[in-house]
C-alpha cells in the first residue's frame, strides 16, 4: 500500500504543462456537408467542423465511420452532395483537384501509391516541375525539404531501396515541397514501430510550429492523446465529439458509442485505482516526453 502512495505522490510531482490554445483564424470550415455514393446509405451526414490555422487535429473513429471519406472531401478527391467547404473563408466546392492540392496536401496511407519516379529527389521535385517554378528554385526547395524530412543523404537513392518509414517520410516530403497550408495524413503511423512513429510525429510537430495545419486521420488512440490537443470523433457519418483527447477517452459512454478502443494508459489507471484518468494520462505523456527529450 505504501508503494502505491509513493507512486501517487510521485505522480503529483510531475508538473503539467499549462497549455493554452492560441486562437487563430479558421483555415477550413466545413458547413452542413453530406456525402454518399449513389444507391447507398449516406457515409457522411450533415457534418460541421472548423479547423484553425496551425492546429494539429486528429479525426478518429472505428472502421467505416466516414473518417476517410471526410479526408477525401477535404482534399477534393470527392465532392460533397450538399454543404460547403470554406478554405480561408472562400468557397472551395468548385475547385479542381489541382487548385485544392495547392491548399491541402494529402498523404495517402500507402506511400507506394504516391511515387511515380525512380530517384528520391526526382520524386520530390515532380510536383514543382509542373508548376513552372525555375529549375534553380526547384533544386533549392527540394534540397530544403529533403533536409527537413531527414532524407537529404538519400537524395540520389532509388525509391525502392528505402525502408517503409523512409518512404512514408518521402511521401510527406513530396507533398510538403508544394507548401500546402493544410497537411492531411491518413493513418500516418500504420505499420510502423514505436521508434519510427515517434520520429515521424516529432517531425510533424516541428512542422506544426512552423504554422502548418495538420489533420491526422487515425484509429490509434495513443497517437491521438499524445500528439494532438483536439480530436474529432466520428460515428455513423456524424461528429459525435469534438474535444481534447483526454476528455474523450475519459468518457466511457462516448467510447462505447463510437466503438473506440481505450488506450492502455486508461487500463493502467484503472488498475492503479486512479480515479482522475485525464490527469494521469496527461502526466504520463508529459513524463514520457521529458524522458525522450533527455535521451536525445
Amino acid at each position, binding site marked *: 500500500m505504501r508503494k502505491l502512495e509513493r507512486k501517487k505522490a510521485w505522480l503529483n510531482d510531475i508538473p503539467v504543462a499549462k497549455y493554452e490554445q492560441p486562437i487563430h483564424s479558421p483555415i477550413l470550415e466545413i458547413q452542413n456537408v453530406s456525402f454518399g455514393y449513389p444507391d447507398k446509405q449516406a457515409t457522411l451526414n450533415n457534418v460541421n467542423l472548423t479547423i484553425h490555422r496551425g492546429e494539429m487535429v486528429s479525426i478518429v473513429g472505428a472502421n467505416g465511420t466516414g473518417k476517410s471519406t471526410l479526408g477525401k472531401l477535404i482534399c477534393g478527391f470527392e465532392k460533397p452532395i450538399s454543404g460547403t467547404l470554406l478554405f480561408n473563408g472562400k468557397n472551395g466546392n468548385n475547385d479542381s483537384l489541382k487548385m485544392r492540392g495547392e491548399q491541402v496536401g494529402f498523404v495517402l496511407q500507402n506511400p*507506394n*501509391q*504516391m511515387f511515380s519516379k525512380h530517384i528520391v529527389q526526382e520524386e520530390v521535385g*515532380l510536383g514543382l516541375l509542373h508548376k513552372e517554378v525555375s529549375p534553380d528554385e526547384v533544386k533549392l526547395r527540394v534540397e530544403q525539404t529533403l533536409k527537413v524530412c531527414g532524407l537529404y543523404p538519400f537524395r540520389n537513392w532509388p525509391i525502392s531501396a528505402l525502408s517503409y518509414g523512409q518512404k512514408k517520410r518521402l511521401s510527406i516530403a513530396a507533398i510538403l515541397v508544394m507548401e500546402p497550408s493544410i497537411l492531411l495524413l491518413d493513418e500516418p503511423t500504420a505499420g510502423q514501430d514505436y521508434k519510427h512513429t515517434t520520429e515521424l510525429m516529432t517531425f510533424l510537430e516541428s512542422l506544426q510550429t512552423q504554422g502548418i495545419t495538420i489533420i491526422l486521420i487515425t484509429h490509434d488512440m495513443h497517437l491521438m492523446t499524445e500528439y494532438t490537443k483536439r480530436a474529432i470523433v466520428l460515428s455513423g457519418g456524424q461528429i459525435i465529439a469534438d474535444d481534447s483527447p483526454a476528455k474523450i477517452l475519459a468518457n466511457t459512454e462516448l467510447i462505447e458509442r463510437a466503438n473506440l478502443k481505450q488506450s492502455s494508459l486508461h487500463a493502467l489507471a484503472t488498475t492503479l485505482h486512479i480515479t482522475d484518468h485525464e490527469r494521469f494520462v496527461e502526466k504520463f505523456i508529459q513524463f514520457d516526453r521529458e524522458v525522450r527529450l533527455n535521451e536525445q
Partner: protein
Amino acid sequence: MSNELLSFIERDSVIHRLNGATKLICFILLSSAAMLSYDTRVLLFIVFVSVIIFILSKVKIREIGFILGFILFFLILNNIAIYLFAPQHGTLIYGASHQIIEGIGRYSLTWEQLFYQLNITLKYIAVIPPALLFIVTTHPSEFAASLNRIGISYRLSYSVSIALRYIPDIQRDYKTIAKSQQARGIDMSRNEKLGKRIKNASSILLPLILSSLDRIETISNVMELRGFGKRKKRTWYSYRKFARRDMIAISMSLIIFGMMIVFMFLNNGRFYNPFS
C-alpha cells in the same frame, strides 16, 4: 467507390443464375461463331441473340457505358484503318465492283467495301454483349469452382478468379493514385492538352504496377500460409451444380455454332456474297 468498370454486378436474372462454366462455354461458342463467319445473315442472328441475352441479364447500359464507349471508339478506329489500308478489299473478296463515289487512286468507295466493313462492325456488335456479360454476371469465386468442375486444374481456375476479383481493386487503386497525382499538380483533367494528359496519365502506371506487385506478393504469401496447393483436390465454397437451364443454354449456343458451320458450307466459304 462507385461504378467500377468490368466488375461483378449483383442482380437476380436468368443469366446470373447460369453456371459460370456454362457462361464461359456459351461465350466461347458464340464469339467463335461470330469471329469465323462473315455471313451477314448469321451475324445478324447472333446480334439479335446477343441483344436478347443482354435484356435478360437486367444489366443496364449505363453500368457498362464507359467500356462500351471505349470499344466503340476502337470499332471506329478499326473501320477507318481498314479503309485506309485496304480500300478495295471488299472488291477482292466479292469479285465485283459497284462504285458509289469515285475517289483518288484506289480510294473509290464501293458497295462491296461498305458491305465488307458492315460485316466487321456486326462482328463487334455480336461479340460485345456476351463478352461483357460474361465478366459482369459471373461471380469470380463461382467461376473458379465451375472451371475446376469441367476439368481445369484448380490452381489455374483460382488464378483466373483472382484476376477477375482484382479488377475492381486495381481500378480503385488507379483512381486513388490518379487523384493524388492530380493534387500534386499533375493535371489529367480536360484543362490540359491531350498530349500532355496522356503523358501525365502514363506516370500513374509505375505506382500502379508497384502497388499491384505488392499485392501479388501479399496474396501469394497469404495463400501459401493457408496451405493452398498442398493437396491435389479442394472443395469449393461457391460451387453451383449444372442445372437444366445450363444444358439449354449450352445446346442453344451449340445450335448457333452449328448453324454457322452449315452456312459456311452453303456459301462455299466464310463470306456470303450478294453481289454475284
